[in-house]
């Protein structure tokens, strides 16, 4: 299996991936982690809203809505 690093925004709807890295500001990263989006967790894309709208992702059975540009800072591995 080849591992590829991409942003969560590039993952197909319905598919899951493992979070490997978060980028962006310190405060932003803490907010992500306190809302469950953390390195090592499996994240699934529920839906991507059109016109650069937000993503809805699922981590450990909990859904979170994240703006598109924020989501681009969540790096995952498939």
């Amino acid at each position, binding site marked *: 299996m080849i591992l590829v690093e991409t942003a969560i925004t590039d993952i197909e709807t319905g598919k899951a991936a493992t979070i490997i890295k978060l980028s962006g500001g310190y405060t932003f990263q803490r907010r992500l982690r306190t*809302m469950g989006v953390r390195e090592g967790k499996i994240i699934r894309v529920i839906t991507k*809203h059109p016109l650069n709208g937000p993503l809805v992702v699922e981590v450990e*059975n909990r859904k*979170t809505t994240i*703006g598109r540009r924020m989501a681009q800072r969540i790096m995952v591995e498939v």
Partner: protein
Amino acid sequence: MKKIVLMGNPNVGKSVVFSRLTGAQVIASNYPGTTVDFSKGKMRLDGDLVEIVDAPGTYSLESSNKAEEVAVKMLGKADLIVNVIDATNLERNLFLTLELLESKKPVVVALNMWDETKHLGINIDVEKLEQFLKVPVMPMVALTGEGVNELVGRFNSACAPEGMKTKSEEERWVEIGHIIKKVQHVTHRHHTIWDMIADATIKPATGMPIAIITILISFWIVRNIGENLIGYVFEPLFDLYTPFAMSMSNWLGHGFLHDLFIGKLIDGEIEYVESMGLLTTGLFVPFGMVLPYIIAFYLMLAVLEDSGYLPRLATLMDTLFHKLGMHGHGIVPVFLGLGCNVPGALSIRTMETRKQRFISATLMAISVPCMAQIAMIFGILGPHDLVYVLMVFVTLMMIYVLVGLTLNRYVMGESPEIFLEIPPYRMPSAITILKKTWMRIRWFLTEAIPFLFLGVLIVNVLYAIGFLEWLGVLFAPITEGWLGLPKEATAALLVGFLRKDLAIGMLLPLGMTAMQLVIAATILTIYFPCVATFAVLLKELGVRDMIKSMVIMIVTALSVGGAMNFILIGA
């Protein structure tokens, strides 16, 4: 007095715990950011009175909005912290717990939502968790009250955990990982048909039509409940009351007192909307016209809030709201504002930046009529044709979007994206909904009705001394010349500061055409918030931004009014 502060992540059940402990009712809803200010209550602990404080939810002690700031501030004043955590979401909740443990204050952990762990296949070893955290941990179900007494039983023995060092964020996450591995066991759970239906409500292709249908049905229900309550309950009650009011009228004879209490008789009869007496219009507007709609609206709002649908709607609306300089959470001030603009104005605290707060507050004040006002719009325009009612709402919606687009361009500052936790759907309980609706109705009865009476009183006094007529003449160039309304409508604009429902009622005796009523009702929404909302906005926005906001309101009212006059009447 000893101060016990409830702290925890958003939507974990702190407000329900608060109500359980104090017996005082506060609003709890199934979306993050319900509580935006602290509330205080008292309870007896071993014979002593102690103060309990319900704080807004926060994800960590470094706040990211005004509501979270309040929570962090309350922590400083606490003698004991009750850290409420969501047992179905243990891992991420523990971050705040560790921060609280480091604050060197006594902590008790309430492991709430215990009922939901079973069907989710979550197993938590409470004893082990206690050993790790070195403070009492009590599983509980705030909704049913299970575990509340046991929790209270641990309050007195609580002390600050010993040997807690301040850790870096990374160290905390490592520790949390370690704790979770030892205390939590999750059995894998397959996605069910319910999960698929739930997902359909948040995906754009299916979610949008569902949202439109849900909103239309909700408002149809509100209108129906409202109409039926009026037709079958409140109007018959007033029919019974009329003979009594008439005999009062005869007894008072002529003069100022008669005008004050009963008002003007029209063809020898009491006209409840037009007479303008304390015991006629002063009672009929709040009870005969507004209250039925308030009841209907808050019943419906409670269902939307408690089911967990609002965060989904926020997600669906996010793209639009982002263009207006906010993000999807901006629907919360709109929905709360439709009930009453005061809680709507408070809820802007959950927005992260000044720009977002300014825009959502200004837009709400301009184009979200409260239910009292909506009820009156139905009351005076409904008999003409529902199309006219629709015209008011469509105009207001267009203004919301247009002013929002403009403000987004010209208001300086950041407008961060949405970042919102979506709670699971929960079945709203009938008792909770009734209690919550009653709480809000009581608020209407105690806070709104005094203002309404004051409004009727002031109208009578100002009318008697001839002030209203003078004012009408003074503003005639604007009302008559620019807006195409009779000059007496100025009095309604003045009363609108106090109560907009009464102001709309005052339009009725002026003999306006339906189109003129549409214009007047629209302007009454836009031009200025009522005094109660104004006070909250002033506090939330500060003097400078409030002045800017007011300029925007008045300019919008005048331009929209003029444009409507031109388009609809063709003056």
